[in-house]
């Protein structure tokens, strides 16, 4: 047998094997490279961007929530809800309410509930950073040569984590300044998406939103309640009517038996309130002492 005759086929087979091993070495080395230069910077920019979008969403939500709250407070005659009070033609009879008359506390309660109802809808449009796939990486993963990247379930995805944080935020402070209501929202900590080799949460971005909204003067409610207590309870209707008309511009007063119904237009809402002039008002002693 001519041994020289096997050189060429052997050379061909060797070439095939050597090139195959080279392909495997290069591809597996490339597939294991998980550090993307600039990846962390991209993740940080995306987090800032998400923060901006959250701020816009919170701003809009707070404006709508405040508008709705002023309107609801006015409809409820200064109370948080009508459920604790008797009503006549949708007017709350303030003598019948079980809760104390505290328009500011009632407003805060309504505002938090309204604000939460807008935040509950929040949807993030965050797109996770997705570096290009390395050649043959899926084949190596398939054969178990490099570990598979496990995608988190939808509820644990990065955008779901952001959504949960926004939905959980609350109004923590409110103060009035120059006819504006400044609302402080609880801080929202956004973890920066983990780009290899940095894990999720190794960096974070905190936003502490403060939102300006148009405000109604809630002191009017106290003045109105005080006036009813002092000038209308156990007093003649004409006396009460003339006092209220004189004191509050644009007020309409309608008598319905022993019940008197008031409508007082404010800047963004219209207060609707009713009272029984034969029954004392809660906290009457407070006003009488003043």
């Amino acid at each position, binding site marked *: 047998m001519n041994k020289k005759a096997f050189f060429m086929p052997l050379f061909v087979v060797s070439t095939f094997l050597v090139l195959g091993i080279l*392909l495997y070495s290069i591809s597996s080395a490339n597939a294991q490279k998980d550090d993307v230069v600039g990846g962390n910077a991209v993740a940080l920019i995306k987090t800032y961007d998400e923060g901006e979008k959250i701020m816009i969403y919170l701003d809009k939500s707070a404006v709508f929530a405040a508008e709705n709250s002023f309107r609801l407070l006015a409809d409820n005659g200064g109370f948080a809800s009508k459920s604790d009070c008797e009503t006549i033609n949708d007017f709350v009879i303030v003598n019948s309410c079980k809760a104390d008359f505290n328009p500011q506390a009632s407003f805060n309660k309504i505002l938090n509930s309204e604000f939460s109802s*807008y935040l509950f809808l929040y949807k993030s449009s965050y797109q996770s950073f997705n570096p290009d796939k390395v050649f043959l990486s899926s084949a190596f993963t398939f054969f178990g040569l490099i570990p598979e990247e496990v995608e988190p379930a939808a509820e644990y995805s990065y955008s779901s984590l952001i959504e949960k944080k926004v939905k959980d935020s609350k109004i923590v402070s409110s103060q009035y300044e120059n006819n504006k209501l400044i609302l402080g929202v609880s801080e929202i900590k956004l973890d920066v998406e983990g780009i290899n080799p940095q894990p999720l949460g190794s960096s974070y971005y905190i936003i502490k939103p403060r939102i300006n909204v148009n405000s109604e003067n809630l002191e009017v409610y106290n003045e109105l309640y005080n006036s009813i207590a002092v000038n209308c309870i156990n007093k003649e209707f004409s006396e009460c009517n003339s006092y209220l008309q004189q004191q509050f511009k644009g007020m309409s007063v309608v008598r319905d038996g022993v019940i008197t119904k008031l409508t007082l237009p404010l800047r963004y809402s219209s207060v609707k309130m009713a009272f029984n002039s034969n029954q004392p008002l809660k906290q009457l002693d407070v006003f009488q002492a003043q």
Partner: protein
Amino acid sequence: MLAKKAMFGMPFLFWPSMLLLLIILIFYSFVFFGLGAAKSPDVVAKASDYSDSGKLIALLSFPVDDSGRTVSDVLSSNPKEDKIKLVEKQVRLLLLQFEKPKDKNAFWNFVVSADSKEIISIRESSIGADRFFEQEIYLPSKDKSLFKVNLFLNCFGCSEEDLSGI
């Protein structure tokens, strides 16, 4: 005699082996250079990955009328037909001012949708064009529902270099 030596005395194995070698070399050349197996992976984040929603946010904050109401203010207050037209007109003007790749068929598109129904659709594209710089935001409506705003560049034949300056 020389030819015989070169063939190592086995002419019936030499030519098929040569053919096989050629096939192997062509195959590996294709894998290494054609498919890019020999190329080092792109370990640097692309310029397009850095894109944020700055353009969309700026556009939504632009005033549309004398009262100072912005595009987003109008859209979120469940606007009527005339207000939508006013916003659309304003947005069209603003989109024309956004930078686009030079000497390319490129258009900025703006779409507002709620409940899968498009309220505003400013779309312009050429066949086979790709989408770039996709920007998206969800905003609340006064009636406690959500609407989605999308902004993206539609461009035919745009390369990384074309987009890098935008």
